[in-house]
């Protein structure tokens, strides 16, 4: 889902950068001191996740983890994903520097959307919590594909074909990330519930 250099036109690149900058500004503004470590940890997870390759489909795909990053971070997903993508572009030649803005929007915007959609479900009963976690992991990928399709609208493939192709290729990732999210949320609930959004400690 990382768009390489030299595919997108100038206006698409610039609007991507503008949205990414705005999102990052909001994310940094909202970032509380106690969330800095969490943001860093999730940026690191996101950075490494793209190395985990799923050899299914014509091109092969990799984990993205935007759902779980968004679920735990909310708006802070923007700076976290921007940093991780910058490092992926420089270290792995994965994506590119000029497409950094667009790629950040592709992956961070769905993350934020999933935060608002699914975070309220996390503290409900076990089943609803699991559904919420799965939804966050998989819906984020669907939205990733839609935004990537939007970015690729002026290329040969066009919006619908590009989005459909990306979504088809990422079907296994959708399911895998949904399951990862379920385990992640269940695990954090057990051992470190303060990392989850909307956690109310007994002391307060």
């Amino acid at each position, binding site marked *: *889902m*990382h*768009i*390489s*250099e*030299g*595919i997108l036109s100038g206006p698409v690149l610039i609007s991507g950068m503008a949205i990414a900058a705005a999102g990052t500004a909001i994310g940094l503004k909202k*970032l509380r*001191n106690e969330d*800095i*470590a969490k*943001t*860093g*940890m*999730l*940026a*690191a*997870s996101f*950075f*490494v*996740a*793209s*190395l*985990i*390759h799923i*050899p299914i489909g014509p*091109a*092969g*795909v*990799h984990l993205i*983890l935007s759902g*779980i990053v968004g679920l*735990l971070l909310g708006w802070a997903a923007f700076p976290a994903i921007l*940093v*991780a993508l910058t*490092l992926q572009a420089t*270290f*792995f*030649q*994965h*994506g590119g520097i000029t497409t950094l803005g667009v790629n950040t929007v592709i992956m961070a915007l769905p993350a934020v959307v999933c935060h608002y959609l699914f975070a309220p479900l996390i503290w409900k009963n076990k089943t609803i919590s699991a559904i919420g976690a799965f939804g966050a992991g998989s819906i984020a990928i669907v939205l990733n594909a839609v935004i*990537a399709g939007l*970015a*690729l609208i002026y290329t*040969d*493939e066009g919006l619908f074909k*590009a989005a459909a*192709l*990306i979504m088809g*290729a990422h079907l296994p990732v959708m399911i895998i990330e949904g399951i*990862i999210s379920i*385990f*992640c949320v*269940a*695990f*954090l609930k*057990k*051992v*470190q519930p303060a*990392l989850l959004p909307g956690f109310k400690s007994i002391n307060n």
Partner: protein
Amino acid sequence: MNIISAISEYAIPAKVGIRKQCNAKDTFYKLPFTASLVILLFFFPNIAFAHNVSIFAWEEGDTVYTQSKFSGGKRVKGGTIIVTDPNNNVLLEGKTDDGGLFSFIRPGSGLLKIKLDAGLGHANYWELPALEADVITDSNIELPETINATENKTLTVITPDIQKEIDIAVEKALDKRLKPIMQTLADNQQQGPDLRDILGGLGYILGLMGMAAYFKYRKQNNIIK
């Protein structure tokens, strides 16, 4: 999966609060995490590559060969190859075969920009430098019957004719010798990130975290003062 926190939680179980809760259920939740971490990090280091495409091109005689693949080694099937000159004028187009290969006769001797579009935002290019003026590109010239040719000419005088023959012979021999080397080079292009890259990236994130914490807390302290 939050790999880092999973590792830290698993590796540092000494936190009092956590230890108190440790029971069979916790072990149940930790098991898939540990298992998947072990599998991902130790059993499949070779498939753990970033996902980008690369193209590598080399010349043999007057033919240009290209090899396109995704990092991780998967070949690009049916990717579009567009060959342009430095001014982005399209010279020719083609599609890669099942082995990610595409070859064409060199159009002109100038610099070639060979672009690969593997679809869905995956693209890369390779620049093939211009041919030097004295390199012979025309390998279609038949080598004459060598015995008769050399008998008629004295060995001390190298006529332009003989020079040309020698050049062609050397070209052909070199192409033959270099072919396996070029193939190896093509295969070794872009082997994906190694541990140094990964740890380097994680180090940067750690540093940025430290910077963010420093500035946030400094601001807070100033407010308190």
